[in-house]
C-alpha cells in the first residue's frame, strides 16, 4: 500500500541543519516535556536532594538523551548543535540538565574509540535507555585540574585489570549502571610524556564487589548527586578497556570539545532564564511609585548581561558548527564554555540583585538557579584552565603550569 505520487518524502537534505540553527520544532518539543516538570518539581527535589527520576525517564523515553548515539545503533544521530538545543531548553525552562547531560555525551568515547563489539554490546541499550552511562570518573582529590597526575591505578592481571585508587566529584554514580573511568596503567615515572600511560575503562557498577567499590555521596550546595568513589582491588574485564592501553588521555581530550559546547548551551539556557525573570520582576515590582526597571541602575545591568549572553551564544553556535563540520574547534569550544558560563553567572547575579530580598526566597527559584549556574565556571573545567589553554595553544605564550 503506497501513497500517491504527490505525497512523497524527499531524501534527507544535509544542508538543512546549517541553514536553520535555531530548531524551533525541537525547542518546542523539549519545552513541552519540560512544562510537565515545573519549578515546584525542581524546588522540591533540591530541598530533598533527590534525583529527578521521572524527569530523566521522560527525557529518555522521548529519545532526547540518546540523541547523539548514531542511528545505526538505534540512537538519534543528532548533530551536536541539535543536542545542545535539548540541554539549553531544559535549563531555559528552569530545570537542571546537569542531572542527565552526561548520559548524552559520556558514551562519545565509546562511539569514537570503542571496538565494533563494544559498540554493538553497549550502544543499543544505551540508546533505548535500558542502560545508563552517566558517570565519568576523572577528577581526584590530590590531582585537581592536573589530570595527568591522577593516582588511580589499573594493573593488568590476565583477562582483567585490578583498579585501586580514589575519585572525587564523580557525579550521578549512584544513578548510573556503567561508569567511564580514567586510570593509570603505566606509572608516571615510567612514561616519556605525562599524558601517556592513562587508560579508559567502562566499569559496570551493577553488582560490583562491595568490598572493592565504595560510592559515598558528597553533600554540595547544589543538587548534583556527586560522589566519592573508592576502588580497592576492583576487577574489571580487560574487554572493558576502551581503545588502546595508555591512550586514555587522548581519548578524553577528544570528547572534551563536545562536552564544552554542550555545557555552554546549558549556560546559555540558564542565562535566558535569568534575564527573563529579571525583566519580568523589574517590570512588575513597584518601589517609589515606579517599576524598578525604570531605573537605569536596574535596567542597564540586565541589558549588559543580555548582551554578553547573546555574544556568548554566537560563539557557542560557531563552535558547534565547526564541530559538526568535522573541523578542529578546541579553542572555540573552550571559549564558548567560558563565555557562556561567565555570561550565565553575570545574568544570575543581575537577576538576584534585581529581585532584592525576594531573590533569596526559595519560592522564586532564583537562588536555586543562581547556585546551579555557578558550577560551570568551575566544572567540567575551570575557566582559568581555559585561559591557560588559550594562552598557550592559541596565542603561543609560555605554558604557565
Amino acid at each position, binding site marked *: 500500500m503506497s501513497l*500517491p505520487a504527490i505525497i512523497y518524502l*524527499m531524501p534527507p537534505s544535509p544542508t538543512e541543519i546549517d541553514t536553520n540553527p535555531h530548531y524551533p*520544532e525541537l525547542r518546542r518539543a523539549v519545552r513541552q516535556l519540560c512544562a510537565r516538570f515545573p519549578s515546584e518539581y525542581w524546588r522540591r527535589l533540591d530541598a530533598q536532594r533527590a534525583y529527578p527520576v521521572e524527569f530523566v525517564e521522560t527525557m529518555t523515553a522521548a529519545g532526547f538523551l*540518546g540523541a547523539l548515539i548514531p542511528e545505526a545503533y538505534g540512537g538519534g544521530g*543528532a548533530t551536536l548543535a541539535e543536542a545542545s538545543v535539548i540541554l539549553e531548553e531544559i535549563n531555559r525552562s528552569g530545570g537542571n540538565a546537569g542531572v542527565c547531560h552526561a548520559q548524552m555525551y559520556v558514551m562519545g568515547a565509546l562511539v569514537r574509540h570503542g571496538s565494533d563489539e563494544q559498540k554493538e554490546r553497549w550502544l543499543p541499550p544505551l540508546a533505548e535507555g535500558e542502560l545508563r552511562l552517566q558517570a565519568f570518573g576523572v577528577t581526584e582529590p590530590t590531582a585537581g585540574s592536573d589530570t595527568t597526575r591522577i593516582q588511580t591505578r589499573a594493573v593488568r592481571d590476565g583477562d582483567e585489570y585490578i583498579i585501586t585508587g580514589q575519585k572525587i566529584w564523580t557525579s550521578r554514580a549512584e544513578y548510573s549502571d556503567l561508569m567511564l573511568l580514567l586510570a593509570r596503567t603505566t606509572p608516571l615515572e615510567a612514561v616519556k610524556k605525562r599524558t601517556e600511560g592513562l587508560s579508559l575503562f567502562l566499569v559496570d557498577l551493577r553488582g560490583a564487589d562491595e568490598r572493592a567499590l565504595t560510592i559515598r555521596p558528597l553533600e554540595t550546595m547544589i543538587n548534583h548527586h556527586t560522589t566519592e568513589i573508592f576502588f580497592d582491588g576492583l576487577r574489571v574485564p580487560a574487554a572493558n578497556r576502551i581503545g588502546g592501553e595508555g591512550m586514555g588521555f587522548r581519548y578524553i581530550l577528544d570528547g572534551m570539545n563536545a562536552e564544552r559546547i554542550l555545557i555552554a548551551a546549558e549556560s546559555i539556557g540558564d542565562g535566558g532564564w535569568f534575564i527573563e525573570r529579571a525583566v519580568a520582576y523589574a517590570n512588575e515590582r513597584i518601589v517609589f511609585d515606579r517599576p524598578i526597571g525604570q531605573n537605569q541602575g536596574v535596567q542597564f545591568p540586565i541589558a549588559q548581561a543580555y548582551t554578553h549572553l547573546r555574544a556568548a551564544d554566537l560563539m557557542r553556535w560557531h563552535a558547534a558548527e565547526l564541530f559538526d563540520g568535522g573541523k578542529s574547534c578546541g579553542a572555540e569550544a573552550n571559549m564558548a564554555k567560558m563565555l557562556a558560563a561567565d555570561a550565565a553567572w553575570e545574568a544570575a547575579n543581575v537577576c538576584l540583585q534585581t529581585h532584592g530580598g525576594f531573590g533569596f526566597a526559595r519560592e522564586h527559584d532564583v537562588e536555586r538557579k543562581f547556585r546551579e549556574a555557578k558550577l560551570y565556571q568551575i566544572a567540567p573545567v575551570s575557566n582559568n584552565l581555559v585561559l591557560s589553554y588559550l594562552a598557550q595553544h592559541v596565542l603561543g605564550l609560555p605554558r604557565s603550569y
Partner: protein
Amino acid sequence: MNVAVLVKQTPDTAELPKVTVAEAQSGELQATMVINPWDEFAVEEAIDLSDRFGCETVAISMGREGETDALKHALAMGVDAAVHVDERVIDGGDEWATAEALAATLKMVDTGDQVELVLAGKMSVDGNSSVIYAGVACMLGWDLLVNVTRIVDIVDGKLIAEQAFEGGQETVEVPLPVVISVAKEINEPRYPSFMGIRKASRVTIPTLGSDDLEIRPSSTTRWTDLDKPEPEDVQVRIFDGASVEEKVTQLADALMAEKVI
C-alpha cells in the same frame, strides 16, 4: 485503506489573547504558531490506527505559504506524509471554501490506495467553527461522525465507533468512507520523539496551489469587520479569616451574592 488527518496551524493558546485586530486582518500573526491542540488528538488517533490496521497516514493542512509547522509536528509525532495547501486557492474564502479545498485535496490524494477515513479535531482554537469536517464530508458525499471517543474496529468496510453526546455515549457503525471528528477523550496525544523531530525536519512537504486544485471557491460569507472586545474589568478579592471554614463561608456568600451559584 489510508487515513488522512486534517490539521490547522493556530496561534499558541497562551498567546491568543495577544493577537491584535490588525494582525488578524492581515494574517501576519506575531504569535508562536503551533498545531491546533484539538488536532493533536486526531493525529494521535491516525498513528494509532496505522499501528492497529497497517494503514498509511497523511496529514493535510491549508494555510499561508510556507506555514508548515503544524504538519512538521504531525510528521514528528509519526504520520507518514504531509501535504500543504496554499490558502490562496480559496482567495480569502470562508469555511465552506476551506472545506471545498480540503475535499479537492483529498480527492487528489485518493489516486493510489484509497483514503477512506478522514480524521479531524473537533474545533480550532482560533476559528472555533467546528464545521470544516462537516463541509468536507458533504463535499465528498461521505458519512460523518462527530465527537468520537473511541474507534472500536474497522472491519468488512465498516467502522465501529463510540460517540459521546450530552450525558451519554452510543456505539455506531458506519460504512467506509467516513469523516470523523474526535473528542479529547479518545486518546492522549504523544509528544514527538527526538527521532520523529529529526525525521520531520528532513521532509520536504509538497504544497498544492491553484494550479493543482481545480476549484472555484464558493464563499458565501465575507468579513466586513473585525473587532476585539475590551478586556473586562476584573476585581480581585482576597478573603481573610481565621480558619478555612470561615474563608470558605465568606467565599460562598460572595459567590451567591454575585449570583454565580
